[in-house]
């Protein structure tokens, strides 16, 4: 398992895994990194290096689990990162997949019932994903921000009610990918379909990572905070 540290150059990190680029962007880091190390860039951009490395390493290694010192990261920073991720999904990733699917549909010479079904499925999935993101943006994140800033419990709300939501959104995307791979009719354009499927898998991976950051980093931190602040 390759674990990045503060001493690693950013170019090493990027070249090891290009999928990390959008992740790094979410911290406000852009290309033109010269020979700067992770530590250099984090100081420059006033990013907590522990959190940066936790996110990058969790994304890079499915097995990685951030250690105790992460408890020093403020939930506000994590929320800010997760919000950037949501923005990336809504403004880029979801639209990109939609575009690729549209291209795939247009390129299909026959009636393409199968692709139309896949399209309906994706639309439905998109709606559910939006609802899920809205729920986090409008309820969960404000709760965490208020808890952190005011250091006071809010009656009737706890972070533990939050985790079960994920699995459903994840499993739909998984279903979609399997359906395309297993049951697509031959009348489609290879390249268009490959692009669509690769984008879909990349998104699936990014979402799974997003959920891991929420479940393994954010939720334990907030649970700890709730315990510290006592009962509602």
């Amino acid at each position, binding site marked *: 398992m390759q674990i990045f540290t503060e001493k690693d150059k950013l170019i090493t990190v990027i070249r090891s895994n290009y999928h990390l680029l959008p992740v790094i962007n979410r911290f406000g880091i852009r290309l033109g990194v010269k020979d700067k190390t992770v530590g250099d860039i984090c100081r420059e951009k006033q990013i907590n290096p522990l959190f940066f490395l936790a996110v990058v390493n969790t994304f890079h290694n499915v097995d990685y*689990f951030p*250690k*105790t010192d992460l408890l020093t990261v403020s939930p506000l920073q994590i929320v800010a990162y997760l919000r950037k991720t949501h923005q990336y999904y809504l403004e880029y990733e979801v639209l990109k997949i939609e575009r690729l699917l549209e291209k795939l549909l247009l390129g299909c010479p026959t009636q393409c019932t*199968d692709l139309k*079904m896949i399209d309906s499925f994706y639309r439905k999935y998109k709606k559910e994903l939006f609802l899920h993101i809205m729920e986090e943006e409008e309820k969960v994140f404000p709760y965490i921000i208020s808890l952190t800033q005011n250091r006071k419990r809010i009656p009737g709300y706890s972070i*533990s009610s939050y985790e079960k939501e994920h699995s459903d959104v994840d499993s739909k995307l998984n279903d979609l990918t399997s*359906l395309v791979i297993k049951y697509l009719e031959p009348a489609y354009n290879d390249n268009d379909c490959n692009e669509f499927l690769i984008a879909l898998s990349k998104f699936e991976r990014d979402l799974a990572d997003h959920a891991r950051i929420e*479940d393994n980093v954010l939720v*334990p931190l907030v649970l700890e905070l709730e315990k510290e602040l006592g009962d509602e």
Partner: protein
Amino acid sequence: MNKKILIVHRSEMVRKGLSAILRSFFTAEVVAFATPDEMAAFSSPPGACLLLFAEASALPQPSVRQRLCQNGSLKVVSVLLSEDIPAGELCADYHISLHTGSTEIHDLVASVFKMPATSGANGHEGEELTQREKDVLKLVALGHTNKDIGEKLFISVHTVISHRKNITEKLGIKSISGLTVYAILNKLIDPDLIDPEKLI
């Protein structure tokens, strides 16, 4: 229920090998640590069902057990070097050794989690659906409730649920809209009969 598998072992080979075996059978999250200290940062979601594989020197003390449990359940598997279970008290619920085969590990985990495997050698993924399962799937895809389906096919709701579980296992598709798309793509139902906007 939220299921998680934890591994605490100094040997990277054991951690990696065990995770690989577990992942090939189960979808539960597997998290590996080299030492109990590393695991101290881990907190389980309340009510989770945990299974911990640990080498003898890393078996959890009662206080750690309690912390991990959090209203859920925790079972501990001791990972021994050889097949001889050492004399004396071992605070583990199960034992495996470095010689234990993957099938045995699979059976152990499946019985602890009281679940069938979702994929892999012992799973049912890829098996063909029976005629009865196809009948149930058609009705699921058309948006009927379990109760409706039971009445139409003259079977109990319990039987409907058990058929649905098998269908999901065999196809590897969990969501209802996914099953509907499957049924259309495999010509179990006629797409002209349904309104995709409503059913998918």
